[in-house]
């Protein structure tokens, strides 16, 4: 046995999850049969984008043998309250259409039967009397006078409107040598996790307890929301999440309306109900990121300095704005000016109701829309000034000596060396060589483009940022209850034989949390990672958790890792005290390694963790009174910087801020318009890296996610609100065939605000890939004078750009 205890954090420890997953032994929601006599639900959905529901006739369905019952909007109206949402004029959002359907695929009725087959058959027997109404899917048309109005009681289609102004925007524009103006359109797409939504609900009428198993991954702020909606006390709503979830990417946050829906069916019908979403349902009415129209105007000096921005952003939140929206608009408030020292900005932020499906978090949440607009604009500035795009970026990047850097909007960037990361990316891409290659390619009549992006990668959301959506006057009223905080809790126990179990609140969806948690605990307690039992199944009834808990905003490696290190350090303190007592040495002169406490001054003095734990459990009265029995700890890590927005709407919307510099080269087939990525270099600063293999997986996966949105995927609708992408034949996800070979580099600026110096890395290139593809394609088409202002850049759209069939296709 070596004297130096091995350290595990920072190593590519192989994932403990994988043997289970690749041998088909994962326990996913559809594998569970947690209660007897489960019945199965199927959901009847609106074929109309917008229609009044004049009546629902379920008589024939109820006659079908095996059908147990039906839930309709009338039941929901009686049994539940509309969901709350953090806007000043909330629409009435129920999990089932009440009186009116507002998007294609909106649930209209739920049939519960002995099995799914009977339930599906019964859907055909329900007769719904619809009165179709005119529909609107375009946000700008939805804001026009005379547009069809979705929520009559609101009088218009505005879900949120806030004008946020930071710094002296007028002075910035007065001092400018020139301005650059553009309009961009970002599409609606999702994540298509391999596993769709799944819910099992059981109602105990005697205890008044609703127990729900689901593949929900947080944020758990949605738990009190569902309890309020169901009108039951929060401690009578129990959420249980299985240890394995087949992908989430933020999209599974928005399962909560279905949790409520199946819970209501279970409550009405008095039986346990299971519902597993099918792929058509997921594609048409699960959730998605928002499509956005952005207007931007930049005030620029002739030397490339960007002085200020005026922007108008219009998010399409579909039929109902639902929590955590309008977070897509405000998550990026702190990092709205990206990686640049821009001094002033006007953000005219809108969220608009249309007859599309409702939206929610989708990996990158708000950042892909932001950076597509901002980074395309930086390139337009470079073009107008005749500068290289890298030159404009170097001119404006925040310098390393400026950290910690307070942004004009309130973001507190913790650490970074942005110019170094961009230099590294350009060097890895052999940028100058690439430009020469481009010249040759252009001379040969080829369409070859080079793009780059520099972007701040925020992690760990401040629970207070969404309240920026609320008008200042309301926030200042005495009855208003402010929100703040970014925290996570972990619980660790050491059993009587000296082994460690740790439970976390992240509901992992494949990220490898079990492995990384074990690495962190192993280092803190001087044991091996495979000796740590990591419990990922989550249960609101038995776990110590809070509204911020869950997996979203890349929070694991930042706040999660800090909570885990913190709880292990607490346990360690007690272990040291007991060991010091047993060895009769000062606990301060001990260290933990190889499963033992070892005296630093006399390495022959050792005691095993088994003996320490055994004493604490079996003979606690032998210990001094101030030590106490057992070894366990619950620890909450809370960022002191996650404050509520101030009166001027400044908000530190995230708590750690990483950095991404992407460089990409593309070649376009002029005949077909097909974009081929020939080089993709991505340099990241995620602070200290906990497991390099896992970070690499996140970078590659997130890049594929962004490439999907930029080149292939779109949840398309026709002008009447008919959904057009109901299968994977029309909704094109990139597969292994479309995968891109990436070159990944790192710059490490440890975070001063987390326990291990690490930052989030989960969303990563999903934020930047759409922007860098946009810039590379624009560069390729520059000789043709075509403007790239929308995604996805499908062959059809690129072909039209090449052939000038409409300037913006």
């Amino acid at each position: 046995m070596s004297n130096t205890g091995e350290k595990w954090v920072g190593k590519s420890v192989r994932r403990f999850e994988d043997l289970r997953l690749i041998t088909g032994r994962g326990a996913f929601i559809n594998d569970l049969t947690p209660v007897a006599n489960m019945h199965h639900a199927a959901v009847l959905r609106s074929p109309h984008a917008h229609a009044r529901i004049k009546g629902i006739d379920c008589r024939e369905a109820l006659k079908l043998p095996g059908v147990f019952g039906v839930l309709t909007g009338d039941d929901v109206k009686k049994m539940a309250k509309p969901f709350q949402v953090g806007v000043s004029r909330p629409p009435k959002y129920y999990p089932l259409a009440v009186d009116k359907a507002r998007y294609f695929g909106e649930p209209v009725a739920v049939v519960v039967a002995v099995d799914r087959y009977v339930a599906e058959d019964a859907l055909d027997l329900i007769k719904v009397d619809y009165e179709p109404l005119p529909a609107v899917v375009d946000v700008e048309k939805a804001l026009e006078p005379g547009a069809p109005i979705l929520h009559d009681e609101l009088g218009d289609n505005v879900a949120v409107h806030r004008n946020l102004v930071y710094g002296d925007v007028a002075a910035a524009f007065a001092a400018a040598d020139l301005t650059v103006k553009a309009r961009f359109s970002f599409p609606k797409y999702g994540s298509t996790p391999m596993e769709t939504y799944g819910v099992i609900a059981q109602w105990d009428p005697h205890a008044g307890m609703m127990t729900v198993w689901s593949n929900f991954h947080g944020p758990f702020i949605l738990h009190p929301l569902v309890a309020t909606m169901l009108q039951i006390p929060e401690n009578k709503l129990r959420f249980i999440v299985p240890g394995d979830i087949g992908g989430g990417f933020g999209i599974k946050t928005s399962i909560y309306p279905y949790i409520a829906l199946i819970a209501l069916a279970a409550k009405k019908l008095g039986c346990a109900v299971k519902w597993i979403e099918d792929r058509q349902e997921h594609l048409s009415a699960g959730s998605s990121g928002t499509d956005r129209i952005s207007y931007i105007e930049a005030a620029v000096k002739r030397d490339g300095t960007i002085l200020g921005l005026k922007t108008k952003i219009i998010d399409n939140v579909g039929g109902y704005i639902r929590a955590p929206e309008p977070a897509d608009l405000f998550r990026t408030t702190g990092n709205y000016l990206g990686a640049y020292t821009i001094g002033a900005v006007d953000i005219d932020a809108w969220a608009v109701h249309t007859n599309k499906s409702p939206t929610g978090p989708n990996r990158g949440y708000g950042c892909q829309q932001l950076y597509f607009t901002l980074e395309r604009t930086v390139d337009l500035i470079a073009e107008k000034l005749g500068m290289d795009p890298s030159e404009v970026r170097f001119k404006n990047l925040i310098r390393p000596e400026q950290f910690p850097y307070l942004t004009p909007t309130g973001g507190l960037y913790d650490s970074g060396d942005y110019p170094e990361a961009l230099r590294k990316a350009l060097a890895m891409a052999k940028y100058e060589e690439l430009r020469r290659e481009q010249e040759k390619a252009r001379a040969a009549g080829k369409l070859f483009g080079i793009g780059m992006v520099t972007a701040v990668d925020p992690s760990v959301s401040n629970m207070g940022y969404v309240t920026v959506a609320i008008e200042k006057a309301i926030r200042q009223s005495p009855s208003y209850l402010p929100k703040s905080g970014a925290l996570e809790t972990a619980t660790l126990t050491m059993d009587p034989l000296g082994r460690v179990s740790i439970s976390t609140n992240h509901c992992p969806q494949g990220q490898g949390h079990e492995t990384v948690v074990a690495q962190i605990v192993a280092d803190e307690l001087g044991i091996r990672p495979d000796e740590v039992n990591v419990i990922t199944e989550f249960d609101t009834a038995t776990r110590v958790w809070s509204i911020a808990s869950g997996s979203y905003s890349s929070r694991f490696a930042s706040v999660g890792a800090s909570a885990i290190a913190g709880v292990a350090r607490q346990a360690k303190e007690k272990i040291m005290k007991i060991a010091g007592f047993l060895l009769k040495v000062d606990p301060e002169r001990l260290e933990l390694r190889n499963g033992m406490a070892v005296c630093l001054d006399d390495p022959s003095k050792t005691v095993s963790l088994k003996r320490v734990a055994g004493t604490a459990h079996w003979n606690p009265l032998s210990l001094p009174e101030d030590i106490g029995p057992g070894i366990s700890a619950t620890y909450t890590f809370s960022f002191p910087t996650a404050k509520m927005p101030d009166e001027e709407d400044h908000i530190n919307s995230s708590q750690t801020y990483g950095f991404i510099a992407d460089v990409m080269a593309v070649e376009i087939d002029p005949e077909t318009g097909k974009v081929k990525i020939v080089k993709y270099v991505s340099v990241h600063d995620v602070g200290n890296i906990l497991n390099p293999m896992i970070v690499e997986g996140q970078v590659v996966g997130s890049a594929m996610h962004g490439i999907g949105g930029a080149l292939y995927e779109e949840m398309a609708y026709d002008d009447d609100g008919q959904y057009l992408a109901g299968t994977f034949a029309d909704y094109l996800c990139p597969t292994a065939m479309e995968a891109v070979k990436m070159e990944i580099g790192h710059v490490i600026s440890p975070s001063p605000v987390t326990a291990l110096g690490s930052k989030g890395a989960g969303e990563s290139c999903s934020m930047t890939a759409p922007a860098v593809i946009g810039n590379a394609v624009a560069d390729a088409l520059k000789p043709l004078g075509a403007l790239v202002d929308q995604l996805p850049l499908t062959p059809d759209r690129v072909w039209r750009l090449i052939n000038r069939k409409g300037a913006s296709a």
Partner: protein
Amino acid sequence: MKIDGSLTLNGTLERAWQVMLDPGSLSRCIPGCEQLEVVGDHKYRATLKVGVAAVKGTYEAMVELTEIEKPRHYKLVVEGSGGPGFVKSSVSIDLEDRGPRTEVVYSVDAQVGGIVAAVGQRMLSGVAKLLFNEFFKGVNRELESAPPA
């Protein structure tokens, strides 16, 4: 969705007109028609069983013949809904005398919605053309099986 087409029927204008307005013939010619019940003057309630790719289902439809200008023109208006979605279509039909034969020029304006349109979008116009061909094939069958007395 708009589809235009023309074709030739194996019968005189008079016979073609007869067949194409006769409920019995219509019920045999309309693809997937399981039932055609007269509910008014040139107004029918129909049960249609049609499938596009994997999306098969039964539609309850109202069929109405309007703008009747004997023997050259009428409009067939179909509005139906069922499990797979809904259809609203109007088919303008013009007949031209070609001696022993008749030329038909048709123009379809159809709106298809629901699941069938969400999953079968790329196939819809192809399927619609197929259904029209089926319909006119049926009309030809009628013309051939019951020659003029």
